[in-house]
């Protein structure tokens, strides 16, 4: 094995780093959007009557049974048929946000179902309802319990973001593929990209552990 390929990748480090930065940007924006959307949908599941809960649950189940890449294609190539045209970045981030929001809503619901019902009942007896009940009473323990799963979901966002290469978003995998195609160094360029993904995921895992430690101290 020689390191010639890695030298070429090093000479193209600007391209690779730009890809990494775009991946970071995509992951950050779509994670925040997915969290907001997921929390909103979770609120609907908690507060809504059966007329709301049933269709929302069905929508979550459908999204969770569909490959991300298909949703990506649908938004990018399918939406123009309805008169809405998104550029590839917007389509990709929207797809990531919608797709992962379904998972966020579902994992919050799971954490909520696992809570003992007393706090909720006591709060209702004290007259809490609606928004205040959700934010002050229901959310804090649910959020705390869901932190590890939310971290896993963020890792999923990082991994799904590589799919955006198919709609030519110039993220990390795209950059690696560019270098690979120009200089024919597939091993070095993709190995570098994979190492970057690994570092990102380890960073998220470390962040989750740190957060849990802080939570444990404050509890």
């Amino acid at each position: 094995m020689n390191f010639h390929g890695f030298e070429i990748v090093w000479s193209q480090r600007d391209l690779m780093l730009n890809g990494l930065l775009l991946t970071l940007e995509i992951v950050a924006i779509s994670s925040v959007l997915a969290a907001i959307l997921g929390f909103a949908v979770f609120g609907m599941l908690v507060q809504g009557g059966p007329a709301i809960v049933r269709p929302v649950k069905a929508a979550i189940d459908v999204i969770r049974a569909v490959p991300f890449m298909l949703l990506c294609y649908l938004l990018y190539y399918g939406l123009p048929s309805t008169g809405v045209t998104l550029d590839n970045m917007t389509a990709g981030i929207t797809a990531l946000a919608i797709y992962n929001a379904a998972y966020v809503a579902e994992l919050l619901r799971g954490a909520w179902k696992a809570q003992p019902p007393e706090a909720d009942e006591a709060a209702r007896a004290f007259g809490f309802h609606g928004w205040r009940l959700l934010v002050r009473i229901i959310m804090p323990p649910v959020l705390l319990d869901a932190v590890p799963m939310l971290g896993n979901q963020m890792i999923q966002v990082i991994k799904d973001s590589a799919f955006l290469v198919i709609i030519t978003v110039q993220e990390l995998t795209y950059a690696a593929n560019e270098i690979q195609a120009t200089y024919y160094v597939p091993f070095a360029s993709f190995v570098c990209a994979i190492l970057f993904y690994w570092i990102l995921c380890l960073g998220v895992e470390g962040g989750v552990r740190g957060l849990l430690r802080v939570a444990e101290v404050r509890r």
Partner: protein
Amino acid sequence: MTAVDYLALLAGAANTIAISAIAIVLGSPLGLMLALVRWAKVPGLDGFVAVLVSLLRATPSVTLMLLVYFALPVLGIELPRVVAAVATLALGSMAYNCEIWRGALLAFPKDQLEAAKAFGMRRHLRFRQIVLPQLLRSALPALVNEMTLLVKVSPAIAVIGVADVTRAAVRIGAATYEPVPPFTIALIIYLAIIGALVLAQRLFENRQLAGNAI
């Protein structure tokens, strides 16, 4: 869409199912082997497997697919794209399955092993007769869940040109300038495949519950 297009989507579905199934059949036992290496704390190998699994679990399937497909020929290994597709999916699945099997192994009650040892059962007999049957049961829900995940990342094989459902839909959409109908059918096909897996898992669990009640 013409009849030929519908047939192309169905053929794509057959490819998706076959390739996913082979990757699952390869990935599960490989994952079990890795989990056993970690469970037995084989010196040297233990740490290597832990790093490998962590790395593979963080690798996007598209990126791994491109690496396997483009880099192996450079190293002198020419693979047909279907083989590259199966190998990549199996690798990813192996890493996830390793963690599932390992979790089940760590949760395995120690007293049963000690009892078997006290009866003079040898190591491999202990594993085959005592551990494995219970392991299969406790790991099954997570394994089926991993299968649905594998089907959901399987469109990554379309990136290297394997004619799966997603690739068929993209091709038809590009040829007819109407991408919505083929994508909708592709969506229904994936819903059916994953729905079937989830249903099979529920049936199996219900049968287990009924069996335990007797």
